[in-house]
């Protein structure tokens, strides 16, 4: 699978910044960013990213709700979603995987390996990372 455009959704500007740089410099992808679930829905519909990196714990609409809304949205329902979360206990990761996302990337992540991790998840090599 080829990625051209990726959307990063996180309420924490610092994490957004790190992810943006990592994905654009290391992954050489076009990076879109959203600071909330609501904004993410708008961006997805407008720019149709190839993959979405979605934070779970967000104020207002949280990651799982955003994910469910995305799946209801026609045209974007097949866009793969990878959860990004600082909840890293086994049962938590398992829970997020079961929600229907293609994989889970745990925080903190290695910015130099982030694009590789995303590709591995999309290619079905792994379902989650742990650092």
């Amino acid at each position, binding site marked *: 699978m080829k990625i051209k455009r990726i959307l990063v959704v996180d*309420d*924490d500007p610092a994490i957004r910044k*790190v992810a943006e740089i990592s994905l654009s410099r290391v992954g050489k992808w076009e990076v879109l960013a959203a600071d909330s679930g609501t904004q993410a829905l708008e961006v997805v519909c407008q720019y149709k990213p190839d993959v979405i990196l979605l934070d779970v*714990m967000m*104020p207002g609409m949280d990651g799982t709700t955003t994910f469910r809304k995305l799946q209801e949205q026609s045209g974007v329902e097949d866009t793969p979603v990878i959860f990004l979360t600082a909840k*890293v*206990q086994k049962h938590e990761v398992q829970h997020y995987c079961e929600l229907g996302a293609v994989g889970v990337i745990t*925080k903190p992540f*290695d*910015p130099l390996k982030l694009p590789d991790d995303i590709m591995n998840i999309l290619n079905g090599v792994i379902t989650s990372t742990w650092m």
Partner: protein
Amino acid sequence: MPDTTTGDVVLDIKIGQRAEQLFAEKQKHVYVETDKLMSALMIVQWFVGVIISLLVSPIAWPQSSHDQLMMAIFLGGFITAAPVLLALKRPGETLTRHVIAISQMVYSALLIHLTGGRVEAHFHVFGSLAVLSLYRDWRVLVSATAVVAANHFVGGIVFPESVYGTKEIQPWRWLEHAWWVVFADTFLIKACLTQVAEMQAVSHRQSQVLETRTSIEDLVNKRTAELQASERRFAEQYAEKEQLAEIVASSNDSIIGQTPEGMIISWNKGAERCFGYTAEEVMYQNASMLVPEDRKDEFEQFVQAGRRGQVIESIETTRLRKDGIIVPVLITRSPMVDVAKHVIGISEMMHDITERKEAEKRVSEFYSMVSHELRTPLTSIRGALGLIESGLIEPDESADLVQVARGSADRLIRLINDMLDLKKIESGKMELHRTRFESEELVTQVIYAMQGMASEEAVSIVYEMTSADAIYADWDKSTQVLTNLVSNAIKFSPRGQVKIIVGKGDYQRIRFSVVDDGPGISNSDMHKLFGKFQQLDSSDTRPKGGTGLGLAICKALVERHGGAIGVESIVGQGSTFWFELPAYIDSPAFAGVNPGDTDSRTILLVEDDHDLSEVFSKLLEAHDFVPLACRTLTQAREAIQLAVPALVILDVSLPDGNGLELIEDLRQNPELIDVPVLVVTGHNREEKGSGSATVVDWLCKPCDGQVLINSIYRALELAQRCKVLVVDDDDSTRRVVAAQLKAMGLSCVEARDGTEAISLTELESPDLIVLDVMLPDIDGFRVVEHLNDSDAGATPLLVYTCRDLTISERQQLTLGVTKHLTKGDSSETDLKQAVAELLGSLSAAAKRRDKDGKADSFTDLLGLTNEKTETDEDQCLSGQKG
């Protein structure tokens, strides 16, 4: 049970004995009755004899009829008297019987004689024998027969007419008579024996009946007793069983009795509470109705194991309640077996572990939250560092990333600090440094500090004072709480207004309310607000720099102050967060010092820390003292040359030397020697040099303002009021004692001998006299004697001597309240303790106005207790309450 044969033998013996007894009784009865009959008969025959002698004797004995009459009367009476007497006195006895028999036969002889030996009269003999046979004793017949034989034999030889009626008789004639008597006797004896045998047989039968009845009665009694005993045992067992049943019934755990197949046959109250079913609802149902679907297989295994007699011990599982809720339980199943070890039922005990599970879940959630909160900032730090290191980025971006990492690191620090703070407060280890301050001061300070944030968010902050009371709380912590609430309010009131209202709260507390016009909080969320990380799932705290612990910390801080915190909110109309802190209440303990006297209000404050000096100065001013603040030792030295302060507050670590050096200076100057010193230090109290001048109190930094003020008042009161006369002829001892007392903040007067002691007592009226006994001129006994007669008779006295005093000596050496100390045996502490106690009792007695227990705190003040801070804190609290 006894052997049957033995039992029979025993019974036979008993029957035999009983029969003999019965026979003896009957025989005795027969003897007694016959005795009565015979005596009656004999009396009657005596009269008959007299009548015969009147009627027949004149015919038979024509020549001597008068003699015959006399014989009938007297001889007959004589013969009758003895047996009748015996029958009356000794009825039933063998002698009586035989005497009666003999007498009867002698009377027969008399009767025969009276009738002149007529043959007809001989029939009396046979009649008598027949009557005597009523005794059923053949021996009586033998006695009687012997008398008859003797009478006939002797009478036949001596006086035949009287026996046979003729003078001429054959010598064998008595034999003929005897033969007929023996003939009659033979049958009578036979009859007697038969009757005796019958009597014995009857007795035996009677005895048998009686004994059998007795033994049956015994048996019945025995059986009854056994029955009663078993009834008692049964009652005991029943009670025991009832108790057990009660225990089972009242147990909080579910205890369910089941058949091996799982049918419920007993259901206790615990089960009722746990599952919500009553016993009627579940009785005879299968226990699988309590098992949720996903545990059916497990339950089946339990049942199988139960049938095999296996115990299931403390297995965690779940059960289904009547209302459909699944509860976690700890289950124990024990089979109940009969004598043959067959499983007849299962006792199933279940302990509801919902609470434990919830606690475990809370702990697990807390760790999960902490992990999450730590990982979030670490993500940006790790990410930023990784990117910078990789060299893939532009220099300007690099600067941005450094800032990102720094910001996240700061957040991490805040988080860790908050967590540690919270832990510290919650474990009660955070010390509060309470001071008195105005509530308005707190509000304006916080508004000033928050102004920047407020203007950034375009929020205006206003305040309203409905009460202007002072607060007694930790300034920093109070600021922290109010700042937190105001900052939250600003975050949630975009372009709005935040209002702080100060008013009276409950329990003499001041309430600070922070009102915002934000979105408000739903009821369901409200109770979560003050929890740890609770708001993270749904709130906006995190992006605004919070750690999710702010309100939890506020709550802990306020509660540590003995205050309260809460929130009121209506969705859409904003929220009001409020907290209450204790109001400052003037302590009556401070009423003693006269505020108008400026000389006694000057306090030299030696403290190099600017902020602390400011705080202390303000505090002193608030109490109408005149602080004279010095930053260095040099300044302090200059100050004491200019004015005599009422008190010195001294820091030990000063920029140009050790503060304790100033104490030396004070000691050198006679004007300053009595000035009390309060040492405020970060050092431990124990590090002080012993006997150092007039140090009244050591306060540890950071020092509670109220404690400081209390100490000041006490020290001043001490310096003003307590004067001690030290009497000792030994110069060094006297000086050491005086120095020790001065170190306690007391003023001392010294006397070298008894005369001086008496004159100084009159002149100075000391509050306490420390007296040596061995003095050069007049000794301690005479001094006490003299003082007892003077006005100083009630002065407290401490006898401080080398001598071991006897009880009578001690009694002699008594003034007011008196203590006796032996120099060699007592330490400096003992001396100080004794002085403090004596002065304490003085204070208690004389200074009743001092209501908050100064007599006790006096001891504390003199540094004789170790738990200084706590005591003072408690004291302050009680001061407020009072």
